[in-house]
């Protein structure tokens, strides 16, 4: 067993895991954060994208011990005090999803994009989600949602 400390969505957690436990399993089964989804376990679908020390990773491709001492942010950490992040609201309003299984990972990829680029073009948004597979939409409504959220965030920061 491997004891690790990890900050998840601002909360300090201490957990014991088998050395071959993935970060995805840790989040979902140990911490009950099931917003990150298990779609392939091979890093192909992006349904489990989370931020690891601010960088997007497929949580299924990271071993939990590698995240020891790190800070992780998942889709559950996006809303603050019950208030949705603009990305979340714009995703809803634009029908940026249908079944919603890709949404947690998709939101985190988009969140990371807006952290580094406050005014992305549609092509840059598409490139940022190129590792997030969505089978329901054509990505178009989703790109629009990100554009709208970016505009809102820019307006709020002025």
């Amino acid at each position, binding site marked *: 067993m491997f004891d690790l400390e990890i900050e998840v969505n601002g909360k300090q957690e201490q957990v014991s895991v088998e050395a071959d436990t993935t970060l995805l399993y840790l989040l*979902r*089964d140990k911490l*009950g*954060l*099931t*917003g*990150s*989804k*298990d*779609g*392939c*376990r*091979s890093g*192909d*679908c992006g*349904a489990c994208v989370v931020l690891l020390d601010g960088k997007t990773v497929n949580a299924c491709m990271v071993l939990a011990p590698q995240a020891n001492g790190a800070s992780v942010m*998942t*889709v*559950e950490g*996006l*809303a603050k005090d019950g208030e*949705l992040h603009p990305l*979340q*609201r714009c*995703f*809803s*309003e*634009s*029908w940026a*999803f*249908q*079944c*919603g*299984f*890709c*949404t*947690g990972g998709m*939101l985190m990829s988009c969140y990371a994009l807006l952290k580094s680029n406050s005014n992305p073009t*549609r092509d840059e948004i*598409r*490139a940022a*989600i*190129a*590792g*997030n*597979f*969505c*089978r*329901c*939409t*054509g*990505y*178009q*409504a*989703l*790109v629009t949602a990100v554009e709208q959220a970016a505009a809102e965030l820019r307006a709020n920061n002025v």
Partner: protein
Amino acid sequence: MSDTHIVGKRVPAANANEIVTGQARYCPDIDLPGMLFGKLLYSPYARARVIRLDVSKARKIPGVAAIITHADIPGENSYLYAAADQPLLVIDEVRYQGEALAAVAAVDEHTADIALAAIEVEYEQLPGIFDPVEAMHPDADQIVPGEKNVLSSHSFSTGDVEAAIATADVVIQNKYQTQCAEHAFLETEGGVGLVEDDGRITVYSSCQAPHRDRMQIARALAMPESMVRVITPSIGGAFGAKDEAHVQIHAALLAHATGQPVRLIRGRRESILTHVKRHPFIVEYTTAATSDGKLVAVKARAIADAGPYTNATQEVLHKFGEFVGGPYKIVNLEVELIGVRTNNPITGAFRGFGAPQAAFVYESQMDDLARKLGMDPLQIRLLNGVETGTKTYTGVLIREGSAMKASLRKAAEMIAWQKRHSCERQPAPHLRRGFGIATTIKGSGAGRGIADHASAALEMHRDGSVILHSAAADMGQGIVTVMTQIAAERLGIDLASITVTNADTSRSPDAGPTCASRQTMVSGNAVLKAANTIRDSLLTMAARKTKTEKHRLDLKVGHLTIDGKPHELSVKDLALRASNWGIPLHSESLVHFEYPEDAPMATYRFAQEVFQFGTQIAQVLVDCETGQVTVERLIAVHDAGKMINPGGVYGQIEGGIAQGIGYALTEELIVEAGLTQNPSLENYIVPLSLDIPEIEIEVLEIPEPFGAPLGAKGIAESPLVPTAPAIRNAICDAINKPLYRLPMTAERILSIGDD
């Protein structure tokens, strides 16, 4: 219904908040006290006799709660869709790669994996049959003993096809091949079974048809259906493959065997190997026309590869045949439909039910015909297209068909069709640009003569809030949102006042499967009917209270209105009065898919009578050195009747086209001697965000005149149908060579070469 207050609005999906916060619960997210983890043992071979299956060592592994084989199934060891020829667990012979032999329940996934590895199986590999044409041979080995390899063979004809072909000016004859395609829903198949205190079995099922699941689980457990409850949690996509049962039955069997909750989720590889795929088709097709481009006859023969078991093969072939002539006026038509067993992957329902295969063929033929006659591809389609009042070759009178030509004209206008070739056709020596058009037809509903009904229940409480019970499965396409909007509209309340329960067979009667673009019409009508009953009670009371004739009253945005003007009485006031006076504000409806009484019966059995038309135009750039195709523009014009929610309708169109682009260019389950070569999302190539252009969409809102709730009809399947032929015609326009096989991969395009 022009002054609707909620219907027609782009409100967020009913479950949007749970989804964006990560709180929506799908099968893999269900965690119950004492829950075990289920896994299935899958065959590595496409065809083999099982000489020995020994689970005794595996059963002794600590942490293994149960291992069941065919011998441990209390009831029927078979799925039941159209036939009962597919076992839940193999008895003595595996017939396709990935067929299940045993089910394990263990304390955790790791232990379940160890148990699977400890199961001893001795196989004797048998020569499989992988070519459907070979399997059709009278001397071919029987794939399922006692059952013919040709599991379905039907033909339909109208007019005099041979005479029409003999006298036609032009005859185009080609052979087409379409591929085995994977649904690639993001949430793999899953189920969670548990035993209630009173012995009933509850199953959370990622499915499209909760009541059919209940029936299948009950017969496998040899329990009455009243002892089985199926609930759908959130579902991560389905696209047809979850219409047929998968592992939810095994989850129930394991829960029953152990008395503990069991969660059984397929891994991605198992999912791709085992669930039904889109049927590969081989089609021989003849089109006959006059020299001025008028179609005079169509003759087709289609062979579909079913894999070893029946599944939805007959239904898929049936729909292929129904739409084999396309949205065209054809008097002489003949089609032969053959479904054949092989040892390839099983095949069944996939968005469109045979219509995408048919469209690829008939729309390729139309372009080949236009080319041969030197006609414009748009004009030849306008010349032959159906209209309102056309009697189709299936004997159906089209009650609303204006969208066929309207969609063609609108799409052509959007891309300036007549001037399309004024762009740079060869932007570099190795690059060729081309334009292709395709226009298609798809029906809603199971088809006339097939049971096609739904129930819904609504209850308004004393505070004006409403609960809606429906067993219609929502896999993401939005039926719950549609039902909520219809109920809110008729009851004059806001969406926040309505709570919808998950589909639950213990609460709601059958709403039928979510397939065939039917739920907006059938469950939509069920909700409309139930809401109208409650509305009538509210208005009766309001009429009494305000001493006003009922026809002057309406309910809008929370209030009673008289002659359109808001009155001080709110819907809440009326609900409270009803409660105080003991007037029930509860209604449960049962509706059937409706057909006008005077409509003639179709000559094609079980034909659909409500149609979605759509036209797409693709602009592509072909790299003649690499074979790479870039879809530069995609114009899509579709009709959906009256849109209940434009967000949902546009979403269905974009998503259908994304799948259509994959179907056209990259998606193919590569199966060699029955063994799938690409069972992963890495090697089964689906389009991602950079592979799809900005799709230019126009929706034609032409209300369906009969049997459609507020004029709305289904849209789920039709947007996928024209995409592949539109792209095919664009590639052919670019490289000036015809293509007859899907997908049109770079390798295949290169092998044809440029001129």
